[in-house]
Each structure stands twice: as structure tokens, then as C-alpha cells.
């Protein structure tokens, strides 16, 4: 049976398109209905395809069914409105029953607009990610709960509140005004990067979901690159950054799911295609006259794809961290800067610099000190790693620290 060779991820890729188009058509007031119709369409396919054979063009079949279900829905509203409230009948005339536009152009536009609508500052960041996963990535409630290490009820509540907020704030599914694009893009990029990091540093033991999160983030970013209006330098920089990071995906964990430290990774497993893609987008991003944090992080990440410790490498990385901290201070960047400092000026100079930070509630602070003291003071090194172990919540994180302790 040839029909078993289904296009991988067909349902997931089409889900977001159908929801975006329908939601744009219905408005956020009826976002659940748009989601229901999309889910229902897949259920119908699952009931019919295995028994009747795959349709010749599965995607067209899905659109056809979704469109019919949507039309039925609109008709039902129309009947209800005309019977219950005759005075508003005119609103639900032909215009309301017009075709659901499933042209490639409208599908793409709707998805981009949906991205801007969901990444609205009015909604808390974790809800933005949740909604993105559900609506733009077609994740199930269970999968989202797994990615966030929480239960289904929490995710359902979070999504419910986020949808309420979209309604309350009367957020429209539309492109922001051209003058606002850069500003609004910032929120979209933040969510995409959070989504990526959720996958890259996820506590979930499910490696398939971890990888999917990263790939979805890259896909969303790619959509922004492919659109003229949103193809800005910072977008390319973020895509470059994610390509560089993702290039080590296969090397970061061994066959048993244990983390492999950077220094011990097998370079053969690094994805050279992604590394050169990263270089390509980083190159494109270096136009215009603003440097975003993504530019700097991508440049740092590009150096990480070269394993050899050269003076040039660490001097440049140190300089990049200095710039990054000026744009946006973050504890992790400050700690990483000191690691680069130790590579350039030696541990003796880096240790007091690190201890000045006094981030005694930060696991990475103690991990860094543990590393800096390695080969300098065995006792202090072990003591810091032990502190780090106490603060580390994830199993993978703990394993990584224990590996470092074994090496002392």
C-alpha cells in the first residue's frame, strides 16, 4: 500500500495554515471555533483516508473539507442570527458567506499576521509561546505540557486566558503598520528565540519534542525572512544564531541521552550544512546600521563552530560579549564574558572578576567558578561545583556538572 508513505508532518504543517486563515476570517472572537474546525478536519481525514484510500491531493482535500465545515458553521450562525435577531440579518448576507480564501498568498499572509497577533506585548511571554506552539506549530496540549514540564490543566488554563486576552484587547489579525514593523518584530523575535531555547535547553526528556521546538522556531523565523516586509537584518541574525546552535544538536547528547560537554563533542557530528547556512544568514544580516543582540550572539555562536582555541577567537569573543552586555545586560552573558576573559588573560585574572559578580543564587555562577578553579585549586573547584549541583534542577544539568567534577 503506497498510501502508507504519508508526507511527514503533513497534518502539522496544514493545521496552522487552516487555523490562521479561518481565524483571520472569523476574528479572534471565535478562535476556538477556528481551532475546532481544523481539528475536526483532521479527524475526518483520519476516519476516511485509511479506509477509502488517500485522496490524490491530500492538501487540497484538507482545504476542501475545512472550507465546507467553515461554510456550514457560518451558515448556522447566519440562520441563528436571522431568526433570533432579524435586524442584524443584513450583516450576515452574502458577504458573510463568501468563499474562505485558501490561496497560497492568503495562507502565507494569514500565518504572518497571526504571528504578530500572538506575539502581542499584551499577552505574557509564556502564553505567547504556548499559543504559538498550539496555533502556529500545531502541538497537542499534552506535547506543550511535556515541553514545559507541567500538566495539561495548567496549559489549558494558560491558553484559555491568553485567548481571553486576545479578545479583550480586541487584537486584530493584521500586519502592523510599516512604521511599527521593527518595534513589533522585536516581540516576535523574542518569542521565536524563547521557543528555540525552550527546545535547546528543555528539561523535557522527550528528545523528539526538544528537536521539534527548535525546528519550529527556525521555520517561523524563516517565514519572516521570506517575506519582503519582515526580512530585516535582525531577523537574519536570529536565524543565523539558531542555525549555528542547532548545528550541534546531534553532538550534544550521546546515544543514551546523556549530555556531552562541548569540549568532548565529536566534530564529525556537527551539521556542516547548518553551519554554512548560519554563515549565509549572518552575512545577509550585516546590512543596515543597527546591531541587535542577535547579531552579537550569532557572531559569538559562529566562533563556537570552530573548536580550536586561538587567541584571535577568544579576543574577538570577549569583545563581542562586551558589546552584548552594553546592549542588554544578562547574568548568563556576564558569566560567559568572564569565561572568554579567562581564555584571553588567564585564570588568575578571571577568578577575582568572577567572584565580584556574587550571583550566589545562580547555578552557572558556581559552575563557572568550578571551572576556573580547575587546575588551580582542587578543593575550591569541587566546592563550587557542589554548590552548582544544589541549584541545578534538571537531570541533564546535574549530569553535566558531575562530568566536570569527575575530570578534576
Amino acid at each position: 500500500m503506497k498510501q502508507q508513505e504519508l508526507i511527514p508532518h503533513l497534518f502539522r504543517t496544514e493545521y496552522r495554515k487552516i487555523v490562521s486563515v479561518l481565524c483571520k476570517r472569523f476574528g479572534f472572537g471565535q478562535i476556538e471555533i477556528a481551532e475546532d474546525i481544523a481539528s475536526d478536519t483532521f479527524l475526518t481525514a483520519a476516519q476516511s483516508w485509511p479506509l477509502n484510500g488517500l485522496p490524490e491531493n491530500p492538501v487540497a482535500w484538507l482545504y476542501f473539507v475545512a472550507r465546507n465545515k467553515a461554510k456550514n458553521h457560518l451558515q448556522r450562525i447566519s440562520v441563528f442570527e436571522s431568526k433570533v435577531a432579524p435586524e442584524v440579518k443584513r450583516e450576515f448576507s452574502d458577504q458573510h458567506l463568501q468563499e474562505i480564501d485558501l490561496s497560497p498568498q492568503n495562507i502565507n499572509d494569514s500565518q504572518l499576521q497571526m504571528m504578530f497577533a500572538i506575539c502581542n506585548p499584551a499577552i505574557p511571554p509564556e502564553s505567547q509561546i504556548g499559543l504559538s506552539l498550539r496555533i502556529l506549530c500545531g502541538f497537542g496540549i499534552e506535547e506543550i505540557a511535556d515541553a514545559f514540564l507541567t500538566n495539561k490543566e495548567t496549559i489549558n488554563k494558560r491558553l484559555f486566558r491568553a485567548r481571553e486576552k486576545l479578545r479583550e484587547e480586541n487584537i486584530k489579525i493584521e500586519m502592523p503598520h510599516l512604521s511599527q514593523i521593527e518595534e513589533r518584530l522585536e516581540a516576535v523575535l523574542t518569542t521565536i528565540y524563547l521557543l528555540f531555547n525552550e527546545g535547546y535547553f528543555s528539561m523535557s526528556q522527550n528528545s523528539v519534542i526538544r528537536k521539534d521546538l527548535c525546528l519550529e522556531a527556525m521555520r517561523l523565523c524563516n517565514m519572516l525572512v521570506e517575506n519582503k516586509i519582515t526580512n530585516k537584518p535582525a531577523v537574519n541574525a536570529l536565524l543565523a544564531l539558531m542555525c549555528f546552535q542547532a548545528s550541534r544538536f546531534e553532538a550534544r547528547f550521546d546515544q543514551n541521552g546523556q549530555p556531552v560537554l562541548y569540549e568532548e563533542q565529536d566534530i564529525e557530528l556537527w551539521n556542516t550544512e547548518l553551519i554554512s547556512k548560519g554563515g549565509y544568514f549572518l552575512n545577509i544580516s550585516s546590512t543596515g546600521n543597527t546591531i541587535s543582540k542577535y547579531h552579537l550572539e550569532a557572531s559569538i555562536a559562529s566562533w563556537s563552530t570552530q573548536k580550536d582555541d586561538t587567541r584571535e577567537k577568544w579576543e574577538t569573543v570577549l569583545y563581542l560579549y562586551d558589546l552584548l552586555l552594553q546592549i542588554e545586560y544578562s547574568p548568563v552573558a556576564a558569566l560567559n564574558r568572564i569565561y572568554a576573559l579567562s581564555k584571553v588573560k588567564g585564570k588568575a585574572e578571571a577568578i577575582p572578576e568572577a567572584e565580584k559578580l556574587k550571583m550566589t543564587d545562580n547555578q552557572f555562577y558556581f559552575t563557572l567558578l568550578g571551572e576556573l578553579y580547575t587546575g588551580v585549586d582542587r578543593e575550591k573547584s569541587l566546592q563550587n561545583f557542589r554548590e552548582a549541583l544544589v541549584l541545578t534542577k534538571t537531570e541533564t544539568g546535574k549530569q553535566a556538572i558531575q562530568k566536570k567534577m569527575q575530570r578534576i
Partner: protein
Amino acid sequence: MNEFILIFRHQDGNKIASPEQIQIWMKQTMDWIGSITAKNKYVGGNGLPFQDAKVVRHKGLVTNGPFGEIKETIGGYVIVRADSVEEAVEFAKGCPVLQGEGNSVEVRKIAGGDGVH
């Protein structure tokens, strides 16, 4: 050789699944049917969409159904050829519908023209 109908009963047809999960479930169904077909025991089958479902009752009363009154819904059926009900039951055991807790597959012999029924 008799024909048996395997009826899929779903306890809750409205469970939220991700598109990916539905797709996996669909592939399993295809594999399952493929394995029956490979033995030349598959006769046919179909899905029964919940949409546009009606129930016609005594004295011509028509309701939207079967929702509301019965929670359980029939999602589809397949017809297989089998030498015995035991063989048909073995086919039914492989049905992916059974992965859902509370779901069941009913196995019924289809009346043939053998004079017995």
C-alpha cells in the same frame, strides 16, 4: 468463509489530539488494514463522520445525533473475511481504536445466504 463487521466504538469522539497524533493514529490504521489486506481478508470499510449525523426515532422524530443522548459514538467499521469469529476477533485486536481507553471494537457476523439465518 464468513464475513464479519468490526464496528469501532469511541467513548469520546471529541478528544483533543494534535494533528501529529491524529496523523500517527491514521498511519497505524493504514498499517492495520494493510496487514488484513495482505492476507486477502479485507472486504471493505468506511469512516462515519460525526458531522451531519441524525437519528430518526419512533414516529418520525428526527434529532441531531447521536450526541447528547449517548456519549458513545461509532466512528467507522471494516468488513473482513474470516473462517471463524475467533479469527475475526484476532483482526479486531490489532485495531488502533483500542489504544483509547474506553473504546471498543464490536465483532458481528454478517448474515449470509447460507440458509442458517
